[in-house]
């Protein structure tokens, strides 16, 4: 199998990004405090979500708002499978269908969770891909609301807004780094594959692409399901590290946060996804510190709750007004070192 020129460049770009991810992760592992490790882990999970989002939004150029729901599905599916029986007898005493009478090892649970997420993504995707533009976005919003109300309603399975606890904490930062690196290769690989190119062409001009023989709906479905699978993996990574999940993190706040990350970096490129995630994760952490009213050089700053939200929203507004393509626009990381 020979690679085309853009695919070779993609390989270089993905490797550069992988290098950055490994470096950041390694530095955090060796020098970070326990609290900082949690933040870095959180940003790697966000990165997985943003990469998954980029697969669909970046290539099909349809704004998706349901991604947090799929992350939640992955997280809950894995959590229900992997939590030990003794634990589930306490936390889910009324679970139907014998859900609290079995427990599997983390790997099998993960695979089951991915399959469940993929099947649900496929079923939803069959409907979403037929729509375009705002219609598709609103249906994805409906999916988010529906999944969230299911999480809240079936407290016997998901515990709603209460904590679902007792998930074995089998992941470390190293596992998150490895997964994120693999995802970077998958996402960039998809972008440069013939499907990715055809899908991006159809986003530019749907009619011409269809006239050239591109099956737009099928390609969108492919990107949608791939995105769903990656979101499921992100959900698993989230629950396997924290050990406790609840429905609240998989709703609007998370949707906007991850969307802002992708927009800031630039949704058309993988480099943009990585850059945006790191800028917002670490930037927001700094703003949150300001929010608590710290004392700097003898100056006491006031406590300003809500500042992080104002900053996040302003970032979105400013980027949309000044650089709608995000910081990276159409440039990938390798464009800075390789000749055109």
């Amino acid at each position, binding site marked *: 199998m020979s690679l085309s020129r853009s695919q070779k460049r993609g390989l270089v770009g993905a490797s550069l990004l992988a290098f950055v991810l490994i470096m950041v992760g390694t530095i955090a592992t060796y020098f970070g405090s326990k609290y900082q490790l949690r933040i870095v882990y959180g940003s790697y999970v966000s990165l997985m979500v943003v990469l998954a989002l980029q697969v669909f939004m970046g290539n099909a150029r349809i704004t998706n708002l349901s991604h947090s729901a799929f992350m939640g599905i992955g997280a809950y599916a894995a959590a229900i499978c992997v939590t030990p029986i003794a634990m589930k007898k306490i936390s889910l005493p009324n679970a139907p269908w014998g859900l609290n009478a079995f427990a599997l090892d983390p790997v099998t649970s993960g695979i089951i969770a991915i399959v469940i997420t993929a099947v649900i993504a496929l079923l939803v995707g069959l409907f979403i891909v*037929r729509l375009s533009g705002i*219609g598709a976005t609103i249906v994805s*919003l409906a999916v988010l*609301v*529906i999944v969230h*109300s299911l999480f809240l*309603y079936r407290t016997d399975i998901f515990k709603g807004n209460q904590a679902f606890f007792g998930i074995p904490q089998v992941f470390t930062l190293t596992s998150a780094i490895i997964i994120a690196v693999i995802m970077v290769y998958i996402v960039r690989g998809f972008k440069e594959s013939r499907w990715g190119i055809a899908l991006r062409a159809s986003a530019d001009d749907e009619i011409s692409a269809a006239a050239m023989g591109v099956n737009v709906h099928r390609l969108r479905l492919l990107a949608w399901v791939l995105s769903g699978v990656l979101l499921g993996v992100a959900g698993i990574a989230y629950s396997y590290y924290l050990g406790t999940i609840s429905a609240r993190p998989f709703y609007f706040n998370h949707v906007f946060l991850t969307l802002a990350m992708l927009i800031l970096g630039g949704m058309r490129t993988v480099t943009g996804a990585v850059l945006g995630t790191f800028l917002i994760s670490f930037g927001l952490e700094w703003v949150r510190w300001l929010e608590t009213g710290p004392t700097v050089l003898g100056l006491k700053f006031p406590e300003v709750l809500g500042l992080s939200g104002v900053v996040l929203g302003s970032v979105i507004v400013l980027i949309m007004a000044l650089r709608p393509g995000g910081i990276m626009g159409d440039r990938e990381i390798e464009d800075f070192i390789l000749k055109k």
Partner: protein
Amino acid sequence: MEFVAQQTMNALSFGAEYALLALGLAIVFSIMGLVNFAHGEIIAVGGYTMVAMAALSLNNPFIVIGAAILVASIGSVALERVAFRPVRYADPTTGLLTAFGVSIVLQNLFLLLVSPRPIAVTSLYFLEWPISFAGLRISSLQLFETLTTIIVIVVMMLFLKKTVLGLAMRAAAMDFEMVRLTGIRANRVFAAAFLISGLLAGIACVFIMARRGSVDPHLGFDPVLMAFVACVVGGFGSLPGAVIGGFLLGAIEVTMLVLLPQSLGGMTDAFVFGSIALLLIWRPDGILTPPREKGDKQ
């Protein structure tokens, strides 16, 4: 019989609220292709104006209502000037995301500058009393809401059909370039669209506040979410579609509330959104979308 009449009234008043908000969204979308998610924050602006009025001990209900509607309208025009002008000719997705950003900023500003907790507003309780009519008992608020919405729709129709600015706005929805070529100022058309949109949000705000009796930073989020859905169902950008979508949504919601058994009470949202999703799959562009082939001038 009484039950049916009562539920019909419920559906009408829910629908009226959604229709008012959906109209505000649709008029902006039809002209500039912007899905204005910050519409809900305009409602909250109206609510906070009422709080400010109470703090200034201005308790005359007409002043309170007038001020809320006025400030909401001004707020809406100000948003256009500050936030939406740079993305005026951008694609709908850029506009949508900008509006999300504006909405997040405003919500957090309320939280930061006012209070994260709900603040009670008691000046509108007088709107609510039970009315007995032909053996039926209905709430005055629901009646007011339905009637106001009908009046607003009629006035708006007259404005759009009989005035030059209204004509310009209808024309702008079809071909904005052409409108500008005839010498009508683009800025004026946009400002008018946002003014009307803010006015409608202000009116809706009065009824929402009268029903809830308190304002918090997330006041507008749920109503606008529903108004959006109403717009989409009716066909985004179509004004009659927004009205029909609003009332249809009200009907669906009340039907779900009545038909779903008690044990499924928490699932109303899921069923409402589920039926909307199905409707969209049947008619992807909504019920009343203007006929348009792919590749037509937008």
